[in-house]
């Protein structure tokens, strides 16, 4: 069988301590195809961010490997752009200069005009064409995150997004989700994104990975989102598959994410692939209770 574009194999992270080592996650296997948009959902503390940091090369795994495009991942690289939850823009540089910072590192041979044109184009894509010369302190949280997204998309073919919209209000979040889809649609880059938001994941992802509760977390399921693209926040809820997928995810987060951990079996065979849209019996499931969702998050 051919290896996927990005292959995470038997990844384990242990924080050693004197009496009892903390196993954050254990034997995690994930494959991501080129151009795929993958979201990962799980409760706080299950090690989602650690997986992302290992993918980014900012953290070392205790065991296991990540193979990307036939090469093993070692250390950070411009191949993998990271968008952090807190934007991490350099505050003494303007929006354009922040993007140029990445572009110049990526294409050292380019002259100043090429760098600026390329950077400005990506800022325009996220709707910031009018704010090129503003400093991050003059921009709102949503605008800062757009600069951060523009920087990552302008430089890297693979994107790692660590809860990029976690600190934004719901309206801003919706607008930037649309922009993210638009940019991703134009550039066809590979995206791996952490989120807490079930609806956001369904809207954006080709596939959603579900993590069980930590410690000793594992990726239990890989949920295929078969809703056709282009998707749109207003219409997606009318798709018959939408609530089946949503119920499946919420059910997992509320009940099964804890149960699977108690069963404690992890044979390292990788996540089970599920496509809830084919499961018509779930339509009668009443676990879509919004209160249950709130309790889960």
């Amino acid at each position: 069988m051919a290896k996927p574009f990005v292959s995470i194999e038997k990844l384990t992270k242990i924080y050693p301590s004197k009496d009892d080592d903390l196993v954050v996650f254990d034997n995690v296997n994930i494959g991501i195809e080129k151009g795929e948009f993958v979201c990962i959902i799980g409760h706080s503390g299950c090690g989602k961010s650690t997986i992302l940091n290992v993918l980014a090369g900012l953290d070392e795994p205790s065991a296991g490997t990540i193979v990307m495009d036939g090469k093993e991942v070692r250390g950070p690289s411009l191949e993998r752009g990271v968008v952090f939850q807190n934007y991490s823009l350099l505050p003494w540089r303007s929006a354009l200069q922040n993007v140029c910072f990445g572009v110049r590192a990526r294409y050292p041979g380019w002259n100043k005009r090429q760098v600026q044109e390329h950077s400005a184009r990506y800022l325009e894509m996220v709707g910031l064409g009018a704010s090129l010369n503003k400093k991050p302190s003059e921009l709102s949280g949503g605008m800062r995150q757009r600069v951060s997204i523009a920087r990552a998309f302008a430089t890297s073919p693979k994107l790692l997004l660590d809860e990029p919209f976690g600190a934004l209000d719901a309206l801003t979040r919706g607008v930037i989700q649309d922009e993210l889809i638009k940019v991703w649609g134009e550039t066809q880059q590979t995206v791996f994104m952490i989120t807490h938001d079930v609806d956001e994941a369904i809207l954006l992802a080709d596939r959603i990975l579900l993590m069980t509760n930590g410690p000793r977390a594992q990726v239990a399921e890989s949920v295929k989102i078969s809703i056709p693209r282009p998707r749109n926040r207003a219409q997606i809820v009318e798709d018959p598959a939408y609530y089946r997928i949503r119920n499946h995810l919420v059910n997992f987060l509320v009940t099964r994410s804890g149960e699977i951990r108690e069963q404690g079996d992890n044979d390292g065979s990788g996540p089970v692939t599920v496509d809830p849209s084919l499961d018509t019996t779930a339509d009668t499931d009443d676990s879509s209770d919004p209160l249950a969702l709130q309790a889960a998050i």
Partner: protein
Amino acid sequence: MASLNVRAVIVSLLMLIVLLGLWEALNQPPEASEAMTEFELLMGGADDEARVPPPSQVAVHAWDELSNPFYDAGPNDKGIGIQLAYSLMRVLTGYFAAALIAIPLGFVIGMSPLMHKALNPFIQVLRPISPLAWMPLALFIIKDSEQSAIFVIFICSIWPMLINTAFGVANVRSDWISVARTHELGALKTAFQVILPAAAPTILTGMRISIGIAWLVIVAAEMLVGGTGIGYYVWNEWNNLDLNSVIFSILMIGVVGMLLDMALGSVEQLVQYKE
């Protein structure tokens, strides 16, 4: 209602007038009961008590000095501008030599926990030493009073710059370092493009503290080494019992110190950023 600035200026001026008025009124020589001989006038007249010259006299003297600040009539009679220039030259030489060492060394201490721990005992012992305590040793080793004064400035301005640089560098937000790492920036580029701009406001604060200390210390150092400079000038005029000149030069020390601080303050503004 006038703006806050205008009102502040009015209050300042009022305070100045009251202060100068009190100073003037409390330091008048007593009325002479009869005409004095030339000898009596020379010795202070009927006044049997020395007095601080009133501001009117200091102002006249200041006008004289400032209208010809660069005259040079021999080793003990130079204009105030020349004296200040000597002091400034010493301060800036010692200060920039200190910056040249303190900022790179501070970078090393800030980036390497090992160097921080290794160098910390030295810094803690050397830092509290009064800069003037180095003077005898400096004179013995360097054998030149001029350069010893510069060395004293060097040693007193190095600490705030060193400590602030190390602190600023060590506390650069880890997110910004992550940004540098994910963009595959080399050590040198990370230092200049991320750490230096991030730590610049803290470094500049250290430089501003240092220039203030250096200007305080130069006066004392020049009183010891003698020859030229504003510190020597104050002491020399005290020996001449010319209190007009003493008061005038004290004011000039204050004005120059303020200008130095303002200069560093405006550089600090340039590198400041808002998060």
